[in-house]
């Protein structure tokens, strides 16, 4: 019999992995991982529209005794320059951290740093 690992997984998800997924697949993947108690750091975060959809999906999944929602923090999308807009380049989402709301707490956020805390509890 193997001893069950204790602790909280923090997974860094590459831009490559996220680019392979459609918006819906991305949201399903993120929500499933977060519901299972993992904290995800996305190298390339979600667009504002995807973030809104993630909030909507999260609300449907809330189970009052087991899953109270998500904590999500990321940097604002990079704004394209005039030339980039002219060439058809869109805003790019940036690094984002997402985790279960009962585990991950945001302490402070500014343009240069997102400070979070993982609170070990019944999930660890």
């Amino acid at each position, binding site marked *: 019999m193997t001893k069950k690992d204790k602790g909280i997984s923090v997974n860094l998800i590459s831009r490559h992995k996220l680019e392979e997924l459609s918006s819906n697949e991305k949201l399903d993947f993120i929500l499933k991982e977060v519901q299972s108690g993992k904290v995800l750091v996305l190298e390339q975060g979600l667009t*504002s529209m995807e973030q809104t959809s993630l909030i909507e999906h999260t609300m449907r999944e809330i189970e009052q005794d087991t899953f109270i*929602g*998500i*904590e999500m923090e990321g940097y604002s999308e990079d704004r394209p320059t005039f030339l980039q807009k002219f060439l058809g380049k869109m805003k790019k989402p940036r690094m984002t951290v997402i985790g279960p709301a*009962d585990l991950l707490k945001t302490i402070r956020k500014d343009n240069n740093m997102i400070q979070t805390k993982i609170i070990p509890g019944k999930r660890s």
Partner: protein
Amino acid sequence: MGLFSRGSFSTIIQKIFGKRHARIGIYGPPNVGKTTLANRILRDWTGDIMGSVSDIPHETRVAKCKKNVKVENGKSSLFMDIIDTPGIATKVDFKEFMNTYGLSREEAKRRAKEATEGVIESIRWLEDVDGVLLVMDSTQDPFTQVNVTILGNLEARNLPVLIAANKIDMDDSSPATLKSAFPQHPVIPISALTGYNSENLYTTMVKQFGRKRRKRRR
């Protein structure tokens, strides 16, 4: 006397270049004063109120709409359907209602369930509004993910947005922080509770939401 008086001339100009009617959603995180502001607007222009307010988050759990509220700005005016939406959050914990606000377990669970449905309803309404009055608490850090997400969503839809920096009657309010955080949008410091600076808000609402603009459908 000329062919047109000043009043009718400005009406004609407004008909050509501006809107006469707009559907405006009042958005924001829970407990920033959305319903207090909706009540203020309605009291000032119709003598009515929108709904009850409370210190307990998620007091508004179903969107409420008041149609054809005429807001005037000198010679021009705008008819607005005002929609007071439930607060948008990424989490809803019934235990917070019990431990912090003393609700019974049953009451807290019911409120939490209704709150999650309210968030979904608010997001759905984004499809059907012509502009957004985004309410932020000027005593709080403006860089919350909910604020950033809502703003990004509105920019992607090309919807006009006006930020109401609420609660400036509080000692620790800092509307300047809000202005510097979101320089790309008009920010009006107000107190929905006392009515301070509401005239300025109404003038900006008519200007901002009266413009013709093509919104992007998603």
